[in-house]
């Protein structure tokens, strides 16, 4: 069973008071819970948020499933998101993500065996002038080559 930490719960309660409507706190609350549940939202997380926020589970679950930044399945410690959309594609994004997957011995969307990485392709991240690029965690890595991307990935613990 998942439970928010006391600090996490406090943060969620603060979000409930921050906006004119309690429902507006659902997006921020999902981020808070995701950070406390190894980077993904499980059905137990939805239940806990429903209890804490006093909102129906359905109201939280439908929001969670609508947006791509909430992971619905367990992911590796590092989520490597390679932008796949046109400007990046024109600059070799597909070859880059294939290279990363083959170097890590994995496929898109699949955790590596050691659980360290999940590689996915995502839609435009607004970094088109510095293509190809990837986002790991909150950070953007731009103007990548196959080598520089793998150096960055290998440097992560």
């Amino acid at each position, binding site marked *: 069973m998942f439970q928010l930490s006391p600090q996490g719960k406090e943060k969620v309660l603060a979000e409930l008071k921050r906006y004119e409507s309690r429902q507006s706190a659902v997006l921020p609350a999902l981020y808070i819970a995701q950070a406390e549940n190894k980077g993904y939202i499980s059905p137990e997380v939805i239940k806990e948020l429903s209890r804490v926020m006093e909102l129906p589970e359905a109201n939280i679950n439908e929001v969670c499933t609508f947006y*791509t930044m909430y992971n619905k399945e367990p992911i590796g410690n590092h989520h490597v998101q390679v932008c796949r959309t*046109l400007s990046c594609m024109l*600059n070799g994004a597909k070859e880059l993500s294939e290279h990363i997957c083959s170097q890590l011995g994995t496929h898109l969307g699949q955790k590596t065996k050691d659980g360290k990485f999940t590689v996915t392709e995502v839609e435009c991240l*607004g970094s*088109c002038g510095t293509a190809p690029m990837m986002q790991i965690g909150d950070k953007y890595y731009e103007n990548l080559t196959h080598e520089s991307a793998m150096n960055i990935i290998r440097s992560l613990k």
Partner: protein
Amino acid sequence: MSEVKYLTEFYHLPEFKGLEGYKKNGGYVQLAKALKMQPQAIIDEVKASGLRGRGGAGFPTGMKWGFLPKNDEPRYLLCNADEGEPGTFKDRMMMEKAPHQLVEGMIISAFAINCKKSYIYVRGEYDDSINALEAAIQEAYKAGYLGKNILGSGFDHDMDVYRGAGAYICGEETGMISSLEGLKGQPKLKPPFPAVQGYLKKPTIVNNVETLAAVKYIMRDGAAGYRKYGTEKSAGSKLFSLSGNVNKPGNYEVPLGYPLKDMINGLGGGIKNGRKLKAVIPGGSSAPVLTAEEALNANLDYENLAAAGTMLGSGAIIVIDDSKCMVECLANLTHFYHHESCGQCTPCREGTGWADKIVHSILSGKGRLQDIELLVKVADNMKGRTICALSDAAALPIISFVTKFRDEFEYFVREGKSKVKGTAYKGHAYAATASH
């Protein structure tokens, strides 16, 4: 013609990001001036300036503000910083390099429309933008530019940042309002327009980052001064995001009406690797594609690009060289729109899916000649039939790609391989993306 440094004058100074550096370079002077004016005079000035929405639709900003009810009903100002139109990365630069410029523009705008609460809705991935804005807002509160009785004017205003969570559709203003309400980001039927009924059913004005930042400069230079750049119907300067197969991609500020040819071959340093220009998408992925010849004759303003059968959109210019396969480029975009359709309206939900399947069937070498017609038919049926513009935005590239580069599509069907690359399509890239 050269670049202009109007909105971006101080972007090269790292100090411009913080309050001190911003104030040293003219920051918050226009706010103090605006607070002494009649709000209606500010609206009139913005109307006279000819400023049009910089997010994509190009709607006149002053006119949009004029749709608010003429009473004291609480209203919201919502800054659209959900920059998601493929090819666009100008707002990110503005927020990271000059967060106070946006904050000041927003407070002036809020004062003009008598609004006491504003939100900046930033796409969730833009962590650096969010941090920069939150820091700037905090500084502005401390310095008395936000909060109660701003600079002794009697005007109160609060501002907050809201983080999106990954959905292109939230860049559509009513989708954004749904998202800010903590719901799925599904657009709402108009009318009522947000200016009448928006966030929590209250009047809400939604403006793009660049639009709101420009308001400060209209205060400084007046409507006539602002019109120093641009054309009669496309006033002012604009930031363009240049990407794709050019030597020097990046954000460039130029006067509206700037020749696209000079953007690509001048500022952009020409086509990469000595290749030739094949096609240009001039206003973000939703804008119909131009052939090289059309592109070299076009100017970057609302009316010229409309006459060329495309649009200025968000100002995202994607350059495609002659080594690229147009079937593959279109497949990249149909995948995008299928992924981003919110699923609410049948023509869009089903149409984006079918279009994506048909293009990928051609790409896999299994296409039939009649699939090309079918593709255009599906796209035609997606136009003008839905709550928001995403469906049209998906249909327009399809029709323009197939019409203008039909030989590449026919060749792929007949030969089972790309006319340009000479190979069949392989790879995993379209099979799986992020879990959703």
